[in-house]
């Protein structure tokens, strides 16, 4: 019998099984359940129709005001109210009021609420972000969320696993974003449909936690169920003093079975830009050079980490945002906001002429605080460039990492830092 992949091991542990194999259905116990201001209100209605008085555990349900923070209109205020009142009624510990709220997938890891070895489900497709910590995490629907809030369980199909072996030295400025855009460009937006994407190889040790979060975050952009990195020294350092529960460190068996193995030499990857309207349209930045833009957004659950803000600030320091460009910088959590404040990064952004917003998803989904008009083009450090994602259906989004985004803000057209 072959060994198990990392995802199979975590799922087996949560299904109370010795082993699981791809294609099998399991009812897994989950360590944390997530809902946000868009998905939780629907789930709450469904939860109430189940007819239970209490949630399965009030310290294992996170309800995060992420998307429209502070509320942008009456509808979003009503949604937030439904969630707030549910949280109060059930004395849910993991609810943050505006001021402490922010982007769900940045808050949960930062607060140590997801730890290595966990199984986590959330009614948001980018719940797969936490795979960076060596846990299984995936997006579910609102009905799933309702049932999981009642039982602490979720049905899952054990996915087949694709293995990505990363080797080589990264080039300057090349971040997790460039690596994942390159991979999605290679395998396509359905290249990992239903699959798990497991990352390994000598180059993984060089990837910082924020790079891993970015890579795991975009697993869904290749159609995958989850993306996962086995915990290593960097993961342990990240969890030290942060983890609210005892981590369980697991790794794939040496004889685990993979559906396919991809070998990628990261030294071959340059800065990437994904052209409209699919993340798989990734190309070297050189091919995008000179495209005039109207807006730059630096933030989101993909690239709003403090390290990303540092890269952007380094490029913007002593320079000015181009006169024809609106640059919007949004730290996704209060902690990142404060850290950026202390390091003087926010000052650099404001000095350069960028607008700095409070923690929210905001423009990432065309929600508020930077919505595009017809015909406008934006460079965004977020994860989706679908038709109309950031506003009007005739607007266009180019996805990139923080270095290209900041350089483009200065140049007024898509550029790499070396062009400045």
């Amino acid at each position, binding site marked *: 019998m072959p060994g198990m992949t990392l995802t199979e091991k975590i799922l087996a542990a949560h299904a109370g099984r010795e082993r699981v194999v791809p294609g099998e259905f399991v*009812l897994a116990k989950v360590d944390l359940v997530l809902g946000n201001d868009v998905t939780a209100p629907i789930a709450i209605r469904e939860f109430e129709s189940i007819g239970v008085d209490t949630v399965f555990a009030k310290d294992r349900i996170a309800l995060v005001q992420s998307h429209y923070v502070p509320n942008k209109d009456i509808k979003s205020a009503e949604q937030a109210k439904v969630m707030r009142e549910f949280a109060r009624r059930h004395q849910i510990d993991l609810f943050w009021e505006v001021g402490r709220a922010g982007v769900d997938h940045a808050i949960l890891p930062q607060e140590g609420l997801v730890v290595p070895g966990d199984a986590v489900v959330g009614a948001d497709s980018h719940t797969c972000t936490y795979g960076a910590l060596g846990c299984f995490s995936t997006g579910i629907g609102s009905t799933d969320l309702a049932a999981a809030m009642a039982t602490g369980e979720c*049905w899952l199909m054990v996915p087949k696993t694709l293995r990505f072996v990363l080797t080589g030295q990264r080039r300057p400025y090349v971040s997790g974003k460039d690596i994942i855009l390159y991979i999605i460009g290679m395998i396509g937006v359905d290249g990992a449909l239903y699959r798990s994407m497991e990352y390994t190889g000598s180059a993984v040790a060089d990837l910082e936690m924020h790079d891993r979060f970015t890579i795991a975050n975009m697993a869904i952009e290749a159609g995958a169920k989850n993306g996962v990195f086995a915990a290593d020294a960097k993961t342990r350092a990240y969890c030290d003093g942060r983890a609210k529960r005892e981590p369980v460190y697991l790794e794939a068996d040496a004889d685990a079975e993979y559906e396919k193995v991809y070998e990628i030499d990261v030294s071959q990857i340059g800065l990437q830009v994904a052209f409209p309207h699919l993340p798989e349209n990734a190309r070297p930045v050189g091919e995008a050079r000179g495209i005039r833009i109207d807006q730059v957004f630096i933030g989101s659950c993909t690239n709003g980490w403090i390290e990303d803000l540092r890269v952007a600030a380094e490029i913007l320091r002593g320079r000015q945002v181009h006169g024809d460009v609106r640059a919007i910088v949004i730290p996704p959590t209060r902690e990142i906001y404060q850290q950026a404040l202390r390091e003087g990064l926010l000052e650099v952004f404001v000095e350069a002429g960028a607008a700095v917003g409070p923690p929210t998803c905001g423009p990432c989904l065309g929600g508020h605080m930077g919505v595009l008009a017809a015909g406008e083009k934006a460079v965004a450090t977020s994860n989706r460039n679908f038709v109309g994602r950031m506003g009007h259906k005739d607007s266009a989004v180019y996805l990139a990492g923080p270095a290209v985004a900041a350089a483009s803000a200065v140049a007024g057209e898509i550029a790499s830092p070396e062009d400045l």
Partner: protein
Amino acid sequence: MAGRAHKYGDHIDTDIIIAARYLVTADADELAQHCMEDGDAEFAKRVRPGDYIVAGENFGCGSSREHAPIAIKASGIACVVAKSFARIFCRNSINIGLPILICPEAVDGTAMGDELEVALAAGRVRNVTRDREFQAQPFPAFMLEIVEAGGLIPFTRARLQKAGARE
């Protein structure tokens, strides 16, 4: 029981299944009246309880709206047979109690209006009109339980009512 096949191609997205302009209602019967409207305006008039939708690859792609399988189920469709399903549509279908089967051969071997019989647990699709039988992957017992309960919410309610299910 036999039903007629309503046959469609690849990549039928959730906007075709139920257009965004109808999302203002959560009423299943109202949704059913507009099911498939932008792809097959006659569907709602033609469909009878016990019929089948037969489609190509990636059925249910696009937005994750649960209204899509709800509209199909409320139309009386007994099962959707496709070459493949989008991941979230697949989850949502099971969760709201709409049976689905993956069977590329049955899709290729069926034309619009053919009479079909589907045995879910066995994963068998019989084309009565052409007298041919196709074998899909059997519907997993676990999923059958959820679908037979009427979806994940009734399934969960029943489980929690059993003493000790919640420990």
